[in-house]
């Protein structure tokens, strides 16, 4: 663990520092290292005759309203998506609001109405919640914490240990839309964009994958903070397998690409809120892409790579990318805070 004495912004970035903080400070206190499930998006619990998925998340986004969504839709979709990638249909969720003194009530109203609409569209009920107000200045605007409960679909058997050599890696659409759309609205950044956040529920496409592929679907995750790079790094680490992806196969949104160029960011590390990474048996690869493409949110789905083999003994697992010019480079777990660069 870094020997700095204060939490850095990067500790919340979804990259290396986040993992370290969880592994070295939080887990030992709450559950110990044997809680392997602690680093997955949802915990799968067994109840007689059922498998349940339980997830929790907190949402801290600024600005609270951004192009393509707001913290309300984000809270619903983010929670539902964590359940979806565990192969679960969402049943119910909680929503706790922590609101800053002084927040405009009409803004709060817009946010909760937006959350309500999204929940209805997705088919999940917000069954309980909590509201707290903190003195002005303690936090910026508001934060939302949620817990989501879902029922794991029959036939869903997902996990790092299911990943095998030769499996295909499938991505449901272009990268970076959420992170860049939010960034465009930050004060002080002389930058604006037509980009809309991709914030959306993945519940249906994920369920469709489970139903169509069954045991051929080995793993799913939504690449949020830290982007695709963090997800692939976690996948490689968790499954102890090397991964190879092909830059030219990654679906692209030209506006997102332009925004990343302007801000000096790597699209692979920018947050998404409506994208899915699936690891499927090689022979089910085409079918997986076909199934996903039936859904608007996954219309640009594509196979972007494959699992090349178990990691070399004694070596950390590697994520390699074939670049657009046919060269090779590694894809590293992002540090945690990608500062847009200048010079």
């Amino acid at each position: 663990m870094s020997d700095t004495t204060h939490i850095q912004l990067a500790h919340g970035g979804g990259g290396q520092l986040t993992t370290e903080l969880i592994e070295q400070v939080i887990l030992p206190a709450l559950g110990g290292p044997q809680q392997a499930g602690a680093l997955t998006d949802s915990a799968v619990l067994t109840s007689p005759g059922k498998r349940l998925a339980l997830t929790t998340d907190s949402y801290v986004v600024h600005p609270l309203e951004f192009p393509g969504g707001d913290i309300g839709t984000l809270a619903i979709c983010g929670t539902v998506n964590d359940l979806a990638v565990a192969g679960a249909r969402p049943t119910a969720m909680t929503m706790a609001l922590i609101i800053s003194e002084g927040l405009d009530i009409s803004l709060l109203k817009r946010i909760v109405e937006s959350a309500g609409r999204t929940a209805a569209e997705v088919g999940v009920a917000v069954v309980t919640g909590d509201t707290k107000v903190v003195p002005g200045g303690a936090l910026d605007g508001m934060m939302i914490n949620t817990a989501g409960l879902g029922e794991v679909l029959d036939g869903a058997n997902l996990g790092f240990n299911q990943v095998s050599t030769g499996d295909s890696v499938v991505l449901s659409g272009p990268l970076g839309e959420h992170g860049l759309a939010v960034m465009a609205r930050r004060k002080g950044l002389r930058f604006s964009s037509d980009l809309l956040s991709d914030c959306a529920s993945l519940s249906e496409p994920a369920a469709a994958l489970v139903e169509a592929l069954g045991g051929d679907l080995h793993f799913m995750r939504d690449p949020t903070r830290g982007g695709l790079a963090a997800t692939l790094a976690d996948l490689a680490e968790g499954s102890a397998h090397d991964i190879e992806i092909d830059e030219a196969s990654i679906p692209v949104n030209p506006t997102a690409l332009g925004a990343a160029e302007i801000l000096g960011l790597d699209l692979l590390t920018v947050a998404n809120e409506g994208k899915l990474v699936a690891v499927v048996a090689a022979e089910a690869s085409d079918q997986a892409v076909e199934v996903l493409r039936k859904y608007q949110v996954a219309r640009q789905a594509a196979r972007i790579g494959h699992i090349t083999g178990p990691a070399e003994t004694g070596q950390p697992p590697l994520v390699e990318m074939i670049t657009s010019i046919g060269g090779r480079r590694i894809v590293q777990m992002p540090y945690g805070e990608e500062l847009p660069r200048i010079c």
Partner: protein
Amino acid sequence: MTRAVDTEIRRQCDRIDRLCRQVLESSGSAGPIQIMEVCGTHTMCIARSGLAGLLPDDLKLISGPGCPVCVTDQSYIDRAMHLALECKQRPIVATYGDMVRVPGSGGSLGEARAAGARVEVVYSADQAVELALDRGDTEVVFLAVGFETTAPGAAMAVLRARRENVPNFSLMTAQKFILPAMEALLSQDDVRIDGFLCPGHVSVILGWKAYEQIAEKYARPCVVAGFDAPQVLAAVEAILAQLVSGRAEATSVYPSVAAEGNRRAMELLDEVFVTSEASWRGLGVIPESGMELREAFGRFDAAVRFDLPDFPSREIPGCRCGDVICGRLHPTGCGLFGKQCTPRRAVGPCMVSSEGACAAAYKYGLHDRGPMQ
């Protein structure tokens, strides 16, 4: 996947392969041919595209002092840290993102921010002036780091601050000129440099003819390139072609660069800054290589305004950034690389800067799997 770009890249690599062999045959040397890129953005572009792996074994691309953050002496960071943490006026330190995680002797600006100091990332020097206008009750100090591409922006910011009478804006400059560093490297004589891949956007300002003094005096081809793989390959090809025919000229394969550069930018630099000696990490003090504010703009000099103490230059034990910057050592040759020194916990600037050679090697290279391509 055969796409147009792949076929063209392959053709370029084939031609480079042939030219390499011609150069080595005619010179009787065993090689390898060593071309130095002096621009951090080239280092990153090369690493990110995996280009080095497509080049023949007897051609090496060495990265040089092209990362302005990396060549900034650690004493500058210490001064900035002093501003952020010790200064009673509690100024806001406005800086490009690249500088935030560079370690000084007592930590980085990012760590200072976590401890309560006022450090803000800005995207341009102009934005730092805006910040000063916005926060009339606080001093704003801009960390002006960069080469010829970035310095005109700082010049414009100072002129604006004067024009609009902004009382709470000042800057701390560590801006540098790249040509003196190239000459210093060649005078050092311990790294064989057969040719230079010259920076694209610095050259937009300087003009490609500026490299004639290097080409002629030191008999090394100097070719300006833009920032994609085909550009880099075209420049490498042009350098090799010159070597084959025994020429040493300054040219450009980057259409956006004019022979004379941007005169207006150079005039602005001259109006606001005076050339001075500067301390370069790895290269020591180089005369006429830095920029200081002219006396007429003295009131915008943060060192004076805040009576900043001098800080000594300190060697970090085990850190080989200086050697990496001079092209003497590949990042993987440093004992700390990937172990005590990683992007997450960097010992030196080359690992933490977004354009540092070590960061490029770590982030994009197969550092754990044997020699770098």
